[in-house]
């Protein structure tokens, strides 16, 4: 890296690529060449910067200038102005929403200020397709240290002391998990990386794999050394082609450099990694289901015990950790357990990556210390609610997490607090909802997801979630009865109490938590037959305001079912029995004469 004076880091993550970041890179390279600066400036395609809301991101170092929403056509100006003349392109700089001032250095942006990046430390900084850049940032140092100077027990103790807990959702202590696998005697053992990220709205694992694939390989090798495994498997979603591609490159490079393969660092430790592909089943995030899927079967979970640490892949002891968990390992080894344990709360150490999405200004991927409050995350890092609307709820923990509300905003985020508040950490999805979101509809949306993703093995999840969905559907259609709420609660509790795996044990959470926090919205649907947020179609009534109607007939022509009648230049009328509530009339009316009640 050091030969060049200026490095232009361009995000090559899935989000920014969708906004033509590849073309931005190409154009930057062409312009640099045109200017004869090929020896002076270099373009590097990195992983995700996290600030997806404002992508594509281009960051120029050494002065840390952070350009947002860069279009391919902007490349010329960046090169001519910034690289050649040293003048920042003002219009591409980020504008702080609170002060309306241009911010040039990402470090002083609210979005980044409170973040501590451990798992994401290399994302947006290195070229993920170049092992040299990973090595330059202490890559594979931890692996060398562990296998040349530490016993497996010593390394496990270090991980235990750090207090690291599984980042995939369960929060099981990572060191303890490794120790359990270590203790089982077996000729063959496996370590697995769970990269079957399935929570809608969560993409941290994908970003890590796209932006820093070597950290996962290094951690898996360390895990292999500690548990006594020489085979590693990465179970990754087939829907992540870029992550797969970068992992393949990384594995190849790591083999060439001798970090994977036989006699690593000249020791007798041998370890290699292969990939297995998921095929679109959310339940495969559960480790027993994941193992069955890797074996070529339907991804149905089985009861634990036996735990995978005793009987896992091909009936051999298997240690499964998720991507983010692995990404923490090399840093913990290098910086020590105490350093890591100093971050976070008493029972939840270190940081957590969240995918901030929904009705928040700064959508993106963030890494924050455990113990930060939801308020800090949503209003400082996230920049508050879009379009100045009112915050209503935040859904954490993915589709089976719970909805938290205003009163929960000052709760420090950690595993135990979120559970106590009626939600969970999950893999780190965080969806913000505002006053326009109907909470009954939101609960129904999540149930629709779990119904579709239930594997069908156990009755409560297979049938129960379907019945929950049907009850919610009944309520949103205006047919709800008082008894339905009690039924939802009883059914929800029994499904949680009796389901086989984590999917069913948590799938009623969105229903139960919205009933708890937004009971009045349910009541409005049931008793008043009204949807306070104006989302539930069946409960809407379209009417024409006589005073505003000029009789232009536009609405009548737009109506697909002929529900609107009226002569030219006369007030029109909507027949509510025919109206299908499509909203076409409202869209078409130029006089604000169609209103929704």
């Amino acid at each position, binding site marked *: 890296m050091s030969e060049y004076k200026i490095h232009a880091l361009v995000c090559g993550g899935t989000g920014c690529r969708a906004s033509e970041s590849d073309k931005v890179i190409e154009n930057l390279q062409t312009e640099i060449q045109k200017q004869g600066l090929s020896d002076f400036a270099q373009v590097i395609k990195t992983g995700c910067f996290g600030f997806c809301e404002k992508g594509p991101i281009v960051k120029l170092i050494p002065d840390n200038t952070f350009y947002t929403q860069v279009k391919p056509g902007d490349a010329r100006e960046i090169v001519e102005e910034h690289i050649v003349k040293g003048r920042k392109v003002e219009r591409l700089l980020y504008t702080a929403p609170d002060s309306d001032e241009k911010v040039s250095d990402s470090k002083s942006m609210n979005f980044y200020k409170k973040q501590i990046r451990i798992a994401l430390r290399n994302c947006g900084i290195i070229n993920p397709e170049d092992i040299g850049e990973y090595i330059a940032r202490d890559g594979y140092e931890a692996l060398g240290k562990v296998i040349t100077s530490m016993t497996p027990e010593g390394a496990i103790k270090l991980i235990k002391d750090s207090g690291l807990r599984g980042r995939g959702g369960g929060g099981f202590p990572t060191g303890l998990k490794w120790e359990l696998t270590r203790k089982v005697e077996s000729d063959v053992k496996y370590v697995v990386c769970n990269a079957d990220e399935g929570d809608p709205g*969560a993409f941290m694992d994908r970003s890590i794999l796209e932006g820093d694939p070597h950290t996962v390989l290094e951690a898996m090798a360390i895990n292999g050394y500690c548990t006594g495994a020489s085979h590693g498997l990465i179970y990754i979603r087939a829907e992540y082609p870029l992550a797969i591609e970068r992992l393949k490159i990384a594995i190849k490079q790591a083999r060439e450099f001798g970090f994977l393969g036989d006699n690593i660092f000249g020791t007798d430790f041998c370890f290699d990694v292969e990939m*297995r592909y998921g095929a679109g089943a959310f339940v495969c995030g559960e480790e027993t289901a994941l193992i069955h*899927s890797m074996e070529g079967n339907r991804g149905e979970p089985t009861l634990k015990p036996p735990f995978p640490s005793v009987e896992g892949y091909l009936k051999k002891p298997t240690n499964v950790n998720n991507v983010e968990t692995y990404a923490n390992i090399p840093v913990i080894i290098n910086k020590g357990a105490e350093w890591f344990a100093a971050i976070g709360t008493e029972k939840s150490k270190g940081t957590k990556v969240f995918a901030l999405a929904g009705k928040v200004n700064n959508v993106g991927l963030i890494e924050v210390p455990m113990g930060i409050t939801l308020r800090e995350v949503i209003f400082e890092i996230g920049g508050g609610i879009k379009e100045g609307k009112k915050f209503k709820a935040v859904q954490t923990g993915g589709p089976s997490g719970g909805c938290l509300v205003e009163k929960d905003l000052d709760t420090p985020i950690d595993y135990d607090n979120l559970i106590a508040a009626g939600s969970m950490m999950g893999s780190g999805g965080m969806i913000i909802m505002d006053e326009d979101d109907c909470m009954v509809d*939101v609960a129904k949306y999540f149930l629709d997801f779990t119904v579709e993703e239930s594997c069908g093995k156990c009755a409560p999840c297979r049938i129960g979630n379907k019945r929950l969905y049907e009850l919610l559907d009944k309520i949103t259609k205006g047919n709800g009865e008082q008894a339905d709420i009690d039924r939802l609660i009883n059914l929800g509790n029994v499904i949680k109490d009796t389901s086989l795996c984590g999917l069913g044990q948590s799938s009623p959470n969105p229903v139960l938590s919205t009933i708890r926090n937004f009971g009045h919205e349910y009541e409005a649907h049931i008793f008043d037959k009204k949807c306070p947020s104006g989302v539930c179609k069946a409960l809407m009534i379209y009417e024409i305001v006589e005073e505003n109607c000029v009789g232009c007939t536009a609405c009548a022509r737009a109506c697909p079912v002929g529900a609107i009648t009226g002569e030219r230049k006369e007030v029109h009328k909507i027949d509510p029995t025919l109206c299908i509530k499509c909203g076409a009339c409202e869209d078409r009316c130029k006089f604000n004469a169609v209103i929704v009640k």
Partner: protein
Amino acid sequence: MSRIKVELKKDQVDKIKEICKAFDNAEGELINVLHKVQGTFGYLPAEIQEVVAQELTIPIAKVYGVVTFYSFFTMLPKGKHPISICTGTACYVRGAEKVLDEIKKVLKIEVGETTADGKFSISCLRCVGACGLAPVVMVGEKTYGRVAPEMIKGIIAEYADQ
């Protein structure tokens, strides 16, 4: 799952056999094999599953059981320009459903179906991870971000003559 009848040619059967062989005809590689075969043929009709079952010496019922378990696998061919709409949470709360309704209306097909001319098919997927661009629609490999229902006709028109 609805079915269509397919007649496999000898070179196609050979190709499937070759893929199975590349995975040592091992039972445990079933999902990898199915990925590869679907990657080659675009979908997994019964006829293909039968060859795979025979090569890996596993019951065809099991192969079908696996194919129908995973939403990534399909027994129906997709359109020339498969349209996928993200219905992940971030996209949902930013109006993905209205976009989906518009696509269905314009193409006059439902999710999982292909237009009569074989050009377009619609599928839903859960989070492509471009939540910053929500709601997101993909046509083939190309991603469209911040899609509003009004944009759908224009997007589809881009592919109409291809």
